């Protein structure tokens, strides 16, 4: 308990020092930031403005020993600077620079009283580490959130389920498929079958360059799951390489409905649907 009180006492002294020398220390910090070529995407004025806010939040976190306000500021800052292309190492870098600038000023102030310097540093370091951690984690989390959002947007765009005519869906797959995208694709298609009451689905994979075993398995599962919903799947645009992969994992291509190109696939789909329409037209 006594130790804790002493540490708080020291932090108070420290905070007073940082407030008193705010202008000078902030200048020094900004100078170090441009020297080390961090935050190059931002103008000098912007860096100065942000540095001021970070400095004040930093001192406040030391004073109150609570990190919520700093955390909120870090998140807000990240939100603003991530679209500008600021990288994780830059954010971590500037916080470590500030930690360094402040530690140096403590050395300068207490260099005659070595014992006191040690005690001050003991109080300062854990708090400074926690601050650096808070800012870095806040930035990384925000970055991850942005990346996730972008990935989702890209995925939505890249897997359109198109209804070309009643009860017929086309799913043109283009580009690289990873397991995550494959799964999303399947879920979208299955939902599409249900909402459009689709009877036939044409999956066109002409635009898929390569397919590894995992993704090939996904394709097979998509075909099987669609059938469980009562829809027939026709796969078109199967390259010889992908056909080979499917055979390698033990897919019986004879069981899978494959047609050379998309046009042929749509024609077969219409034949399947036409047969159905005729049967329904007759009275029971």
């Amino acid at each position, binding site marked *: 308990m006594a130790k804790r009180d002493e540490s708080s006492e020291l932090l108070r002294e420290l905070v007073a020092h940082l407030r008193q020398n705010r202008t000078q220390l902030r200048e020094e910090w900004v100078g170090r930031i441009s020297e080390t070529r961090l935050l190059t995407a931002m103008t000098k004025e912007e860096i100065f403005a942000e540095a001021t806010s970070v400095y004040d939040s930093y001192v406040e976190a030391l004073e109150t020993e609570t990190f919520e306000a700093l955390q909120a500021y870090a998140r807000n800052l990240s939100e603003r600077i991530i679209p500008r292309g600021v990288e994780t190492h830059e954010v971590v870098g500037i916080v470590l620079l500030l930690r360094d600038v402040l530690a140096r000023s403590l050395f300068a102030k207490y260099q005659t009283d070595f014992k006191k310097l040690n005690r001050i540093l003991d109080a300062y370091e854990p708090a400074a580490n926690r601050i650096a951690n808070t800012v870095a984690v806040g930035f990384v989390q925000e970055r991850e959130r942005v990346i996730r959002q972008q990935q989702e947007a890209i995925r939505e765009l890249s897997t359109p389920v198109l209804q070309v005519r009643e009860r017929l869906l086309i799913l043109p797959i283009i580009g690289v498929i990873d397991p995550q995208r494959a799964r999303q694709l399947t879920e979208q298609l*299955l939902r599409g*079958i249900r909402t459009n*009451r689709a009877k036939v689905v044409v999956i066109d994979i002409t635009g898929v360059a390569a397919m590894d075993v995992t993704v090939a398995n996904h394709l097979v599962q998509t075909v099987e799951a669609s*059938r*469980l*919903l009562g*829809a027939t799947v026709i796969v078109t645009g199967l390259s010889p390489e992908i056909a080979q992969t499917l055979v390698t994992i033990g897919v019986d291509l004879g069981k899978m409905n494959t047609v050379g190109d998309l046009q042929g696939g749509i024609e077969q789909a219409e034949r399947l649907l036409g047969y*159905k329409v005729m*049967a329904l037209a*007759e009275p029971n």
Partner: protein
Amino acid sequence: MEVPILKQGAVLIATFQAALSDADLNHLRSALVQQVVRFRSRGVIVDVTAMDVMDSFASRTLREIAHIIRLRGAETVIVGIQPEVAFAMVQLGLTLEGVATALDLEEGLAYLNQKFKTMK
């Protein structure tokens, strides 16, 4: 939990109400077979719309129902498998191979009617 079996012309319709235990499924299997024999039904629709999990036992029971009923000269179609359930089933390797499936009751009836015509 009883599974109600509805008779509509030559077709029997069994609707799964909610999560069924193994005992319920076994009961359903024997009840359906009995009724197919009794009413000389030509088709059976098993509606699983309400089922939120289809594990290996449920899936095997459905296949058995379809096979036994085929031996009795009737056709079975499973309707209403939910997209999420279908996804989980194929992950487990449960594909109901050899069993007819349709989107819903309406589609199931259309499928059976068409089957009956070609069988005539």
